[in-house]
């Protein structure tokens, strides 16, 4: 051990540890908990950034001894007591503090920059942020944050508007306002799961399969159990005989229960084989090396083509059961089941056929497809292939659990606390009242934390051993044992007339769900259910089959199937327009839906059941197309000064959903505290997107209370009421509406109580700012006084408003994305010069957060379009297990001219007219960029990612 003497945040400090320890680990252990780790010492993501003797450095790449005499500044050093500095405040104001796992580090970098260059140019800001990976909010508003900080320093206030405001008649809704937890997040407060881990907790370590497909004949843990410090080892042979699935979806789920905690067959490289509970990782690794596993390898399949081939090895081949809707020939079907395999249980039919590797299937449509093609003057028939992008949340999957008062308590980074409770209770075979899930701040979800990927095993391990246990995925495990997008092969056949009318659309979707079937129906369905309804076409049909294979697991990821569907369908539309010699934008304008149009296609697009036909509601699509076309000067050919470069333009019209009408369910409460302030208890899960702030705004708007008088607790299954969770873009529409209803309920109760206290009729009373009941005769009663009386010895009881929200109605967001791209015809290099994202979010409750959500989502989809690639070797092993190998976009990849625009359209169903904003923003980049490349150089690239090599090959360069 050594003592290193240095200065930390201006104070002399002694850091104790081993000479070779990473400075980051020592700093975190010494209480500087804002210094985090997102990349397991790769030196990439920047969550471990400090200022080290005047220069920004990754503390993971500094050994402790090297800090002798150094002057170190961590994000804690930006604070004055608890007061944030002006850069941190500016970041909150600009809306970039969202999931915020490395927002403190970004603040540190920008503060460092401004200390050196009080008026930095854009290139200076780019350089300062060149080594930090921002996945949530994009980079665009960081330039704004710097500008705001400069303005504050020079003028004492912000001058530049952070976003437009909406709805003049409302006081907080539609207005940019600092997120209620923004300061806490950007300060680096202890808000994440890793900050809850008590000293001397055990760790969980997972031994994983080296084979993509194999029976596990035996697992001998006897020697491993003898290692001092090993508490327990769980295998397929001693884990609960409980079938479940890992998707956080409403019960009964449209995903097969095709696994147990650990299985007697491994189905991907990295699949669980044994779970070791030990005092530390070193002990667990030692034990893992002593576990003797006997595998019986089977030939794997990795693509849908391999999975559907005649005689293909079967990924699942056990007995099939149905909770309801079993086909009549089930017994016959099961005669060929493999006795060595576990069951596959469907809650209801998903039209799977596991004996042919089919996990789920669907089809549906309207009109007469063949007639539609016959009427066409031109038909395109193209096949598109998407890849397997990974969410790359900066905070990997983590969970901490302990036993408290005979109950299992889990601190989770999750989008679905109530589904976690239900599924963990099921696995542990205990009732839900024995499980308490606390959703901590989520350092990046993006869909992958809708799946219950670590809480299941961790929860059971805690329940079984009685120990406090912490689990954290390594970054490599995030890639090969987490969840990704479903790779999809999508064939689109589209026919059209010379006047631009589309006469028929056919989609054949073949999806690859990997080893397990979480989301096997619903994600691939979205490829059609979120695309076809945007078209006013009488003849549309889709077929869908989802295949099991042995690739790393897939699951939910922002966009949820729609990004792939849009890539295919808009590219096909572009190809058709090119074939007909007409402008694709004119073709779009001619064939898009408008408000009031009856969406007959929805009948065939329900998730495992018949869908409801509804008219198009609020729709800003045409305005988005028109405005975007004007912004990008659609129709004007841009020329580069360098003849090697060709410039092209493309667009995509897009839609998504706002939650799942008929399936989602949200609840909330608003409590009036004894001093008249409010506590909102929301079942919703704020992933950093601002849902808590939204809930607070609901209460503030209805009850006319200052925002600082409202606190929000959310996602705690003990204190908050049930909510299906934050997925399918449900936050604003469902959880927000529940909070709104709870606020309205409290308002009624306040009026009622005030009428009794004041001796007035209820219709004589109104509520005014700041939280005062006022009678017609001018008498007033503050909320504080009212509540004090209500909770006194003779009071009628604390006032609590309760609200829930379910609906059959859809609040569909629409939009259009435009891209201008330059392609180097000699090297194939691609530059996104301009990207304009225009979307209608109804009334954006938090407009600056909404804009940043759009920037972040577009960057993710630029990522999967041009850069990101999860690659497997021939044995199915993932070889891209680092950020560098996987190739995520950084600030240098952001479009030079990047704008997000909110189209003002009020929705009739959303809370104060709001709709969802962020999933839809994942849908446009791939098709817009593909179209722009085709416009530039005349070639259509139909596979992800679109690389320079593919372009050169298409151009015949080699």
């Amino acid at each position, binding site marked *: 051990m050594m003592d290193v003497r240095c200065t930390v945040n201006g104070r002399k400090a002694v850091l104790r540890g081993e000479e*070779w320890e990473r400075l980051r680990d020592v700093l975190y252990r010494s209480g500087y908990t804002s210094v985090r780790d997102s990349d397991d010492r790769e030196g990439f993501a*920047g969550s471990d950034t400090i200022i080290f003797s005047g220069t920004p*450095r990754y503390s993971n*790449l500094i050994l402790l001894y090297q800090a002798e005499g150094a002057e170190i500044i961590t994000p804690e050093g930006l604070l004055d007591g608890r007061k944030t500095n002006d850069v941190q405040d500016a970041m909150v104001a600009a809306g970039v503090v969202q999931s915020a796992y490395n927002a403190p580090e970004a603040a540190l970098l920008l503060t460092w920059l401004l200390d050196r260059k009080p008026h930095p140019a854009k290139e200076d800001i780019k350089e300062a942020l060149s*080594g930090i990976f921002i996945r949530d909010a994009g980079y665009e508003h960081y330039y704004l944050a710097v500008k705001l900080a400069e303005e504050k320093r020079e003028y004492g206030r912000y001058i530049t508007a952070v976003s437009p405001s909406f709805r003049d008649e409302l006081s907080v809704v539609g207005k940019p306002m600092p997120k209620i937890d923004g300061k806490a997040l950007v300060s680096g407060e202890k808000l994440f799961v890793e900050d809850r881990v008590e000293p001397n907790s055990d760790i969980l370590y997972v031994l994983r399969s080296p084979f993509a497909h194999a029976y596990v004949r035996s697992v001998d843990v006897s020697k491993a159990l003898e290692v001092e410090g090993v508490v327990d080892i769980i295998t397929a042979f001693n884990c609960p005989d409980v079938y479940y699935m890992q998707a956080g979806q409403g019960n009964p789920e449209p995903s097969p229960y095709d696994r147990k905690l650990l299985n007697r067959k491994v189905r991907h490289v990295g699949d669980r084989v044994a779970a070791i509970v030990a005092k530390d990782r070193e002990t667990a690794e030692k034990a893992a090396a002593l576990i003797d596993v006997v595998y019986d390898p089977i030939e794997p399949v990795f693509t849908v083509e391999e999975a559907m081939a005649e005689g293909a090895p079967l990924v699942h081949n056990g007995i099939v059961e149905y909770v309801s809707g079993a086909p009549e020939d089930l017994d016959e079907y099961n005669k060929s089941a493999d006795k060595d395999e576990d069951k596959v249980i469907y809650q209801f039919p998903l039209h799977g056929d596991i004996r042919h590797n089919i996990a789920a299937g669907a089809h549906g449509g309207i009109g007469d497809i063949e007639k539609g093609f016959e009427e066409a003057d031109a038909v395109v028939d193209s096949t598109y292939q998407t890849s397997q992008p990974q969410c790359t949340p900066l905070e990997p999957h983590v969970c901490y659990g302990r036993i408290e008062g005979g109950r299992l308590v889990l601190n989770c980074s999750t989008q679905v606390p109530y589904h976690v409770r239900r599924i963990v209770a099921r696995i542990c075979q205990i009732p839900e009242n024995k499980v308490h899930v606390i959703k901590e701040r989520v350092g990046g979800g993006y869909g992958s934390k809708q799946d219950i990927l670590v809480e299941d095993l961790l929860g059971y391990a805690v329940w079984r051993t009685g120990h406090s246990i912490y689990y954290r995925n390594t970054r490599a495990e995030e890639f090969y044992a987490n969840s990704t997008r479903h790779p999809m092969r999508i064939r689109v056949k589209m026919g059209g007339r010379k006047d631009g009318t589309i006469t028929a659309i056919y989609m054949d979707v073949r999806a690859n769900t990997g080893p397990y079937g979480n989301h096997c129906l619903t994600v691939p369905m979205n490829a059609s259910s979120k695309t076809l309804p945007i078209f006013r076409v009488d003849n549309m049909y889709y077929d869908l089959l989802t295949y099991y294979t042995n690739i790393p697991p897939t699951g939910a990821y922002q966009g949820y199937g729609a990004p792939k569907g849009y890539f295919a369908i808009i590219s096909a539309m572009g190809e058709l327009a090119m074939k007909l010699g007409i402008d694709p934008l004119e073709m779009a304008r001619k064939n898009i839906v408008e408000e009031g149009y009856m969406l007959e296609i929805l009948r065939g697009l329900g998730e495992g059941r018949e869908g409801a036909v509804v008219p198009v509601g609020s729709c800003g699509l045409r305005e988005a197309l028109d405005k975007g076309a004007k912004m990008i000067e659609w129709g004007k050919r841009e020329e580069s000064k360098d003849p090697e470069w060709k410039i092209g333009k493309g667009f995509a019209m897009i839609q998504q959903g706002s939650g799942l009408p008929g399936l989602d369910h949200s609840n909330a409460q608003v409590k009036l505290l004894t001093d008249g302030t409010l506590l909102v208890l929301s079942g919703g899960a704020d992933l950093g997107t601002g849902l808590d702030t939204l809930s607070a705004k609901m209460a503030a708007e209805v009850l006319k209370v200052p925002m600082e008088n409202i606190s929000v607790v959310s996602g705690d299954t003990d204190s908050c009421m049930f909510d299906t969770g934050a997925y399918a873009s449900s936050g604003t529409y469902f959880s927000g509406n529940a909070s709104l209803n709870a606020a309205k309920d409290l308002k009624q109760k306040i009026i009622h109580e005030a009428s009794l206290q004041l001796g007035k009729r209820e219709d004589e009373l109104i509520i005014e700012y700041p939280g005062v009941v006022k009678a017609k005769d001018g008498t007033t009663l503050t909320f504080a006084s009212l509540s004090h009386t209500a909770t006194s010895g003779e009071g009628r009881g604390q006032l609590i408003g309760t609200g829930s929200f379910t609906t059959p109605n859809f609040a569909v967001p629409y939009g259009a994305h435009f891209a201008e791209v330059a392609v180097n015809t000699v090297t194939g290099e691609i530059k996104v010069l301009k990207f304009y994202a225009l979307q209608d979010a109804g009334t954006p409750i938090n407009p600056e957060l909404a804009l940043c959500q759009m920037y972040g989502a577009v960057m993710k989809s630029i990522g999967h379009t*041009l850069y990101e690639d999860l690659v497997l070797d021939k044995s199915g092993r993932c070889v891209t297990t680092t*950020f560098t190998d996987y190739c995520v976009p950084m600030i240098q990849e952001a479009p030079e001219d990047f704008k997000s625009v909110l189209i003002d359209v009020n929705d009739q169903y959303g809370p104060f007219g709001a709709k969802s904003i962020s999933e839809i923003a994942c849908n446009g980049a791939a098709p817009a960029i593909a179209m722009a490349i085709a416009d530039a150089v005349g070639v259509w690239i139909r596979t992800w990612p679109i690389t320079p090599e593919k372009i050169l090959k298409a151009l015949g360069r080699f």
Partner: protein
Amino acid sequence: MIILHPESLEAAVEMKRQFPQSSYLSGGTALLSLLSGKDKDSCFIDISKILSAEIRKEGDGVRIGGAAKLADIARSEILPEFIRKSAGFQSSLQLREQATIGGNVALARFDSYMIPSLFASDAVLSLISADGTRDLQVDEYVLSGDKDSIIESVYIRSLSDGEAKRFARASHAHAALTAAHSGKRYAYGISGSGFAFGDKDSYSTVDFSTDLTGSGDYKRYLASVSFKEVR
């Protein structure tokens, strides 16, 4: 992990002779990246404090100390623009402030930021080892596979203009090809394949192989079009 702290370069190379499996630690961005669990088996000889980081004019050229950071090289106004640009190929500010020219050259990775442009500028490496000191041209050093010597300094003999290029899918991704030329000196670093030093067509001797950065055919093509014809 064992860390040795020599007080001179001579002592450092002697330690290397005694512990041949050890590695010199200068900036450490490559050596310390992603090491986990294996930390305890590593042995490092820390030369960061005994190696010069100076960048200064010397005769008709510029001498760069082996410990000079890529960030300092990128900022140095006495170096040719294309060499500064090469240092900037390390696109992360934090890594540029830590990585050294000596480390980047010594690793001799095929996607090295600096090796092609150093060759193009006719750079000479001053080396010290247990056998003494010697000067070697960049290509000779790379092709020798020498891991025992310390790169004490790099002398840029030619300050003429040149070009440096890096072909990678994204700023932080591995490069398929890094190339540079100045006058008639060309160098290519091809991912997964090797280096080529010499004239414009010297890349044709490389056996181009396929990896994450692209196919062999793609990389060969890129090498062939990296630079316009010199008239």
